[in-house]
């Protein structure tokens, strides 16, 4: 079976739902929203904590509440929602192959595509912790699903490696459910997630956080019996003499997320090796014309509110593309990350409209000044755990077009002023 549609959106999490809704509102008639799970909403259903929607709705919502607002909106439109539907192939010519129980295998020929596959967790093997291979080692997100959706406790005494948001949120959740969290272990000198989670998840319940420490070994016969925790030096190497045993029956890993881009790679979409997501222009268009990307598939965002906004932009731009309003200009401006910039999107600028930049710094910095082309903004504090968003007027980039580059950097204000 072949289905010709205006737009195919892959993934019905927060980015995909927002993309489908905004594309519909922008006038696209025939939209397929493809989701492999039984229910739309993606990861939001297992994120039962609050803190969602503070920016987008100006309300403090839980994940399921945030999801239900979009599900209700989505089901009131005529967007075709295909659940239990797995996309198996994405080709460079924009054909999509998918499979579901009702239609079997089918081919979709869309005029435009929005990639919204989200991200997945790194595992023990991504970071290579030595030791035996007992049961009781979980990624934090999987443990979150077990506890919050399926109703199982994965263990009784926990060590959590990594202080990403999911790790800290799970520390609180497990503590509230009666488990003991022996420690949250973080290799960096600062926590990996949002500060509010450090306060409300760890400090509130006196859960110890060990900065500049890591798990150097896992041991246990059949089941995790404990881990070795050691301090690391300034290069991140384990200091053997600081190693000590901590007994536990469960180790959770919250060691980072990777944008989910198997389909993008198959299609030959250019990926940013640093971020792991597609290289995009300011319209969120990838290196293949008519294929857009939004949300965590692009870069791992700190807040779902930003993912929603990203999805809305991708959906609206896909609609403009289909209407022929997104004619590609023959010019291009390369975005070059400079001092203290870990990641920045978009990677290139092709149009003459205002541009939204999203970036993360490498190291925490106080009294910072951010420079993007001819635009400058001061920040009291910038932290690598937060995505900073700035919107530039076309005139801010005027001077950059001559050299074809716009450099982005972030420096300490006092230092620069002293130099002047």
């Amino acid at each position, binding site marked *: 079976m072949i289905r010709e549609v205006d737009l195919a959106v892959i993934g019905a999490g927060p980015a995909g739902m927002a993309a489908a809704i905004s594309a519909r509102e922008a006038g696209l008639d*025939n939209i*397929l929203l493809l989701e492999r799970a*039984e*229910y*739309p909403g993606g990861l939001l*259903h297992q994120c*039962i*904590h*609050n*803190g969602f929607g*503070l*920016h987008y709705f100006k309300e*403090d919502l*839980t*994940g*399921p*509440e945030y*999801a*239900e607002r979009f*599900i209700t909106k989505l*089901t009131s439109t*005529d967007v*075709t*929602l*295909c*659940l*239990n*539907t797995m996309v198996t192939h994405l080709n460079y010519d924009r054909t999509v192959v998918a499979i*579901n*129980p*009702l239609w079997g295998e089918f081919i979709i020929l869309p005029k435009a595509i929005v990639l919204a596959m989200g991200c997945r967790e790194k595992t023990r093997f991504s970071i290579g912790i030595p030791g035996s291979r007992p049961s009781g080692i979980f990624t934090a997100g999987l443990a979150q699903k077990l506890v*919050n*959706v*399926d*109703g199982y406790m994965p263990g009784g005494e926990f060590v959590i490696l990594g202080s990403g948001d999911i790790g800290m949120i799970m520390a609180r959740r497990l503590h*509230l*459910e*009666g488990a003991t969290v022996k420690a949250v272990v973080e290799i960096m000198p600062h926590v990996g997630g*949002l*500060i*509010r989670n450090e*306060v*409300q998840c760890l400090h*509130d319940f006196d859960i110890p956080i060990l900065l500049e420490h890591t798990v150097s070994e896992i041991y246990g016969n059949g089941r995790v019996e404990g881990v070795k925790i050691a301090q690391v030096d300034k290069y991140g190497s384990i200091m053997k003499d600081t190693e000590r045993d901590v007994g536990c029956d469960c180790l959770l890993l919250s060691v980072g997320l990777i944008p989910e881009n198997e389909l993008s790679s198959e299609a030959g979409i250019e990926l940013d090796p640093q971020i792991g997501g597609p290289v995009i222009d300011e319209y969120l268009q990838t290196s293949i014309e008519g294929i857009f990307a939004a949300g965590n598939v692009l870069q791992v965002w700190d807040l779902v509110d930003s993912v929603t906004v990203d999805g809305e932009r991708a959906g609206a731009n896909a609609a403009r593309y289909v209407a022929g309003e997104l004619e590609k200009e023959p010019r291009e401006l390369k975005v070059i990350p400079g001092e203290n910039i870990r990641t920045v999107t978009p990677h290139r600028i092709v149009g003459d409209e205002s541009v939204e930049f999203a970036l993360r710094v490498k190291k925490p910095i106080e009294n910072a000044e951010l420079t993007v082309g001819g635009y400058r903004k001061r920040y*009291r*504090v910038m932290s690598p755990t*937060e995505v900073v968003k700035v919107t530039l007027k076309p005139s801010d980039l005027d001077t950059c077009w001559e050299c074809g580059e716009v450099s982005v950097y972030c420096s300490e204000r006092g230092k620069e002023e002293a130099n002047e």
Partner: protein
Amino acid sequence: MCPLGCRIEVQVEGKEVKGVHGDRCKKGVKYAQQEVVFPGRILTTTVRTDNPEMPLLPVRSNQAIPKEMLIECMRHISKHATNGPVRLGQTVIENILGLGADIVACRSISLELPKISTGA
């Protein structure tokens, strides 16, 4: 630290808030005062349901609960279960432990949703 991410300094004399600095909005000022005088948290957890396809219902308190009462509330909530369909926002436990906060549902159970819409 306000939930929006601003670092706020609060000057306190005894139990009285004398000054708030570093806020970027009115919500921040209110939060900072609250955090010093009455540190409360929204409690989010789950209750059991009778629906085999969705064994747990996510719930929350509709107001902040004093920090030291959170574990007590968890014990109380664990004794509850829901029966049948649930609407988003429906009260599951009224005025939990007399603290003035209700425990309410964070999603609907049996929300009408086609398994696959063919769109034809």
